[in-house]
């Protein structure tokens, strides 16, 4: 992974903006930001102490070539996808999508912060959904509860006991999913084929991008 990072860093040298434009999905919008700060002001996580930089700063840092800081920032992972910034941006920059695009790129080249909960959820969700063709809720929940070890997993499970039982009673949660049973998709094989094809197309597109760059 870090090899890929080095490759990209070498290829774009000092032009981080160009790197983002070509490698991150929706990255071509970064240059259109006019630094009004409406996205930062609209962000519900802005008052959350945990984030490194509001979107306005991330955009500015990209233009200023702060590669390391941007890619290892936790900001993109704090996004709740509420789309306030997207809706309000006077320049119609799809800020939410740009943030996701940068996050994905940072993950792809191995620069994303480790043990970031959102990132963990995304990865777990993706693996879970692609494996079963639809989300296996019990396994997903288990993976999340036990991500910090057995002790904290059991503790969280006990805390949520009432909710879980309520869901089971209402027929919204099937405990048998823990055994890989429960509802399934009709054509798991088909889904896997579809995903494989999508991967192939994506790689081809990225490859074309690379040959252009």
């Amino acid at each position: 992974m870090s090899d890929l990072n080095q490759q990209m860093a070498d290829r774009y040298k000092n032009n981080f903006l160009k790197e983002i434009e070509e490698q991150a999905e929706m990255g071509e919008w970064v240059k259109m930001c006019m630094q009004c700060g409406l996205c930062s002001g609209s962000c519900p996580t802005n008052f959350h102490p945990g984030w490194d930089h509001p979107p306005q700063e991330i955009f500015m840092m990209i233009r200023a070539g702060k590669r390391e800081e941007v890619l290892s920032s936790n900001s993109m992972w704090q996004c709740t996808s509420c789309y306030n910034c997207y809706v309000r941006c006077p320049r119609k920059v799809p800020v939410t999508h740009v943030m996701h695009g940068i996050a994905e790129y940072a993950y792809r080249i191995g620069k994303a912060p480790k043990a970031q909960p959102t990132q963990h959820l995304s990865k777990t969700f993706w693996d879970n959904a692609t494996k079963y063709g639809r989300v296996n809720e019990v396994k997903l929940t288990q993976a999340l509860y036990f991500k910090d070890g057995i002790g904290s997993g059991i503790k969280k499970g006990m805390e949520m006991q009432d909710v879980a039982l309520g869901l089971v009673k209402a027929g919204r949660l099937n405990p048998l999913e823990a055994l890989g049973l429960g509802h399934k998709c009709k054509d798991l094989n088909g889904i896997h084929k579809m995903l494989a094809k999508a991967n192939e197309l994506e790689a081809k597109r990225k490859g074309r991008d690379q040959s252009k760059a």
Partner: protein
Amino acid sequence: MAETKTAAYICKGCELGNRLDTAALVKIATKEGKMAVVREHDFLCSADGVAMIRNDIDNEGVTHVAIGACSRRAKTEAFNFTTVAMSRGNLREGVIWVRPDTDEARETTQEMAEDYVRMMCAEVKAMQVPAGNQKTGTIKTILVVGGGISGMTAALEASKAGYKVVLVEKTGALGGWAAKLYKRVPTREPFKSAEDNGVADLVARIDADANIKVYLNARIAKTSGAPGRFKAEIAIESGASATEDVGSIIQATGFSLYDANKLPNLGYGKSPNVVDQAGLEALAKEAAAAGKPICRPSDGQPVKSVVFVQCAGQRDASGEHLQYCSGYCCNTSIKQATYFKDSNPDIDTVVLFTDLRTPGNGEDFYRSAQNRGVIFSKGVVSEVLPNGNACTVKFKDLILNEDTAAEADLVVLATGAVPNSGPELEALADAKRAAEGGGEEETAKVVAMMDKSVLNLDYRQGPDIPHFKHGFNDSHFICFPYETRRTAIYAAGPVRRPMDIAQATEDATGAAMKAIQAVENAGLGKAAHPRAGDLSFPTARLEGCTQCKRCTVECPFGAIDEDEKRFPLFNESRCRRCGTCMGACPVRVISFENYSVNTVGAQIKAVDVPDEFSEKPRILVLACENDAYPALDMAGLNRHEYDPFVRVIPVRCLGSVNTIWITDALNGGYDGVMLMGCKHGEEYQCHFVKGSELGRYRMSKVYDTLKGMNLETERLMDMEVAITDIATLPAKINAYAEQVKAMGPSPFKGL
């Protein structure tokens, strides 16, 4: 003129007939007003009502008409009798619309109406029929000073409307700043690419226009006369001279770039690779002519990176540089950035700004530059250091809040505009006074200042148009664009306020329209803005004049000179009819035919002042006709009620208020006097610029008189009123009325 015959007309329309006892009003007009003819009509502004008045004028010899109906601001087209003297009693907006329709209010409402009838009769009897200024000039030619975009546009627009134009340009070619531009910012959809500067086209149209006479390498050596009959002496560089008779003048002398030598911290003068915007245009033209990319001056190598520094020596809070925004420089830098990106997208192009201001359709252009890859960073540049063939631009990134630096082959400073206006008149007057002693240095200073003069006006008040702010020749850019404080002389383009080419084009067109209006009005002996069309003009009874010079000094428009015997010499065509001279005159010898110390004084005296036991105080309101009176009318329109004991008299300007009116009113038993005038000072809204300020200054002296009369100073109330104070004004009047009632009746009642 024929014998005076007066007539009063009382309207019963718009509910007046139901709310008021009009028969009693007719009686008052007849018995107290002593009007020769008095008539009622159900609908006075109807064709039938107007025909009735017209018939009395045409066939009955009526010369003085008093109309008791709606406000003087309403139905002006119906009641348009220019051959007679006319007064209007405001019974609708001033009485029934501001009073409740209740039994208790009926008596005081009727008394209010009766007073307004008395006032209109008294006023019209004190009036004369305005004859129009006889010293008119009928020259329709328009002089345009300055041959840049603004001047050329003004000339072409005036010519298109059928007027002859004399265009004077100080350099050897038309075109001004725009001619120096490689390209101009886009003017049409999709606003993405810089365009041809358009100068060649304008010059060709001027050359082909038989109405326009052009003087190149020429300056105005002297301007004398007045609207409709100015004489402009034109001095040509070759030594020749010419005299042109013109009716009005448009000053379109444009701007100069702020001197970048004053910005050594930004590297100007230290490195040849630091240029101002004009410097870059020159480089771009040179490069285009040679078919090469733009090269840096130090070694002639193509520029690979460029940094634009916005607000260089502008919007400066320290007071050292320009305090204002020049309005065009952001768009210009965007345009110049595209010069680079369009020739080679790999050139690093950075614009450092604090606030990017893109008037017109500049926002689209801004976006297109971003799309081309121009980097816009919010930052303040502290220093530009020469670094071999490059420069280091040190700046504070305002978004990331950190000090940082950028390397660039070329640095472009957006330095902003300084108006090419004439000398500041007050400073010039001071310098002239200092030079009266004959000191060489002082005299040289006066010569240097006069050297800057654009118009060399032969006016007592100085050779040029007064400055507004920061040296710009404006009078008030919101309320009266193009107007200057010299009648029939209009400022257009960046000499008036900072602006770009698109705005200057529009501005010049507007100024041409005003200049045409001015020559037409001057030819008819009528006033210009804001009393456009007014036929009255001031006259002075010189045998009473004490030569105190207050009128000549205070006239905001430089209309009054002094003759050889040091008496005031009115230039009626320069006059705006504000009456500031009339208010200033301590011996009250200045008057207008239809507006004088007597016309207002007679109204004040005509009001019935009840005795001290009646509990009916009287409050006189002198309201500015431009803002306060319309606000009162609109308060009526919105049925905002106010106290029935006020009597409002419109005045042309607070500056025209003569202190005798105040003392007469208080001596006559009025319990209070309210003055309503416009805001003055830096953000003034006075239509006559200085009128309200001068009026207020004079009123400050009246307070001493009040003390001398043993009266409370609160009996005089001076209030700033804006035309928008519609809802709040009645409450303020009522509050003052309560204050007056609490003070008790004036001790002068019944004396």
